[in-house]
């Protein structure tokens, strides 16, 4: 197994500085570091490789155009880019006319939360940021099933509280409570994350 590449806080700052200075090579390096995660997240949300690749294109174009808007005081670069990727993917998801049917088909086929426990291939561990992935993965896996389901539906499918309640046939208050508790637990578990090394 190859050793995963790592991005320190200082390396991230340097990369952001170069991106802001319109260094095209820096964009290529950023792609190498983050494309697997952006593509993975988009695929996880969209379940469509071609659409996910479109999202990847949108994300890196947006990052390149608006990298000056990234404020390091408000958070590291990686979550900022992941948030862009999630929003873009959810936008694409919402544009689909048949997205409910597709989501239901997918849920029937795989079940919600399947990703959390999915096996990983040996090559995946060489992707930069892998240790962080394992940490987030473990934090999600540690949640009780009913809490993990609401978090996954909210984050990866962009459902509102009401939509989650309808989907799971649960009272709205129950959904809100589960989400709140899940977020508290995740915050406590992942609070120390500052960059890919933390």
């Amino acid at each position: 197994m190859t050793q995963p590449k790592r991005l320190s806080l200082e390396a991230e700052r340097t990369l952001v500085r170069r991106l802001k200075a319109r260094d095209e090579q820096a964009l290529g390096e950023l792609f190498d570091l983050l494309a697997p995660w952006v593509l993975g997240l988009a695929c996880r949300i969209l379940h469509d490789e071609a659409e996910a690749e479109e999202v990847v294109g949108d994300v890196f174009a947006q990052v390149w155009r608006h990298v000056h808007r990234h404020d390091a005081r408000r958070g590291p670069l990686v979550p900022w880019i992941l948030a862009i990727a999630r929003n873009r993917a959810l936008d694409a998801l919402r544009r689909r006319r048949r997205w409910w049917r597709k989501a239901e088909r997918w849920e029937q086929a795989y079940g919600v939360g399947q990703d959390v426990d999915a096996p990983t291939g040996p090559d995946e561990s060489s992707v930069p940021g892998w240790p962080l992935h394992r940490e987030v993965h473990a934090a999600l896996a540690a949640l009780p099933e009913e809490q993990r389901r609401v978090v996954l539906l909210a984050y990866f499918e962009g459902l509102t509280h009401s939509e989650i309640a309808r989907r799971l046939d649960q009272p709205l208050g129950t959904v809100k409570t589960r989400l709140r508790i899940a977020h508290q637990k995740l915050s406590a578990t992942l609070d120390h994350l500052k960059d890919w090394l933390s």
Partner: protein
Amino acid sequence: MTDWLGMAAHPRSPHPELKTRVLGRALERRRWIAPLAAAALLVILAGGGSAYWASRTIRALSAERDTLSARLAALQDTVNTFIHGTATRLVQVPVSTGGRLGAVTIFADDAHHRWLVRCDGLAPNEPDQAYQLWFITDKGMKTAAIMPMDQDRPMVMALEMPTDHAQVMGAAMSIEPRAGSAEPRGPMVFHRLL
């Protein structure tokens, strides 16, 4: 902490050509934006320049309009003074120039020592000639005005009477060289004692 939840998704190795496609697209936009920004800047500059030019022109025209309005009001005031003044005498002199009949009308305001003279129907001058109006005074003929007439249309002018204690006794008009003469030498159009 949901910011990091995206990392829970399994990574996927992108196809090798995806990087080329994505970077090409991101950087292509940048190359496309630069000319667009330049064009937008050009449009803004052109628009700004046009607006500045239009504003300057409007200001200049407004100032000219105000000046002309003031001059017109002054002229109207002058004409009213001549026409309605109690000390104004009206003298109309029929004239014949170039085989055509016309008239010179004089509003003589002795109170303010001014004349208003209107010429109608005078034939246009030869290019090197002009009509010259004279005051007939007790000290001789004194020039009142030189009136080159190149177009066939009425002419109105206000004249100050001589201020050298000469008594004005009448008016005369002759045809002189375009620069005027010190005393009448050319053909006399009219000679009239008031």
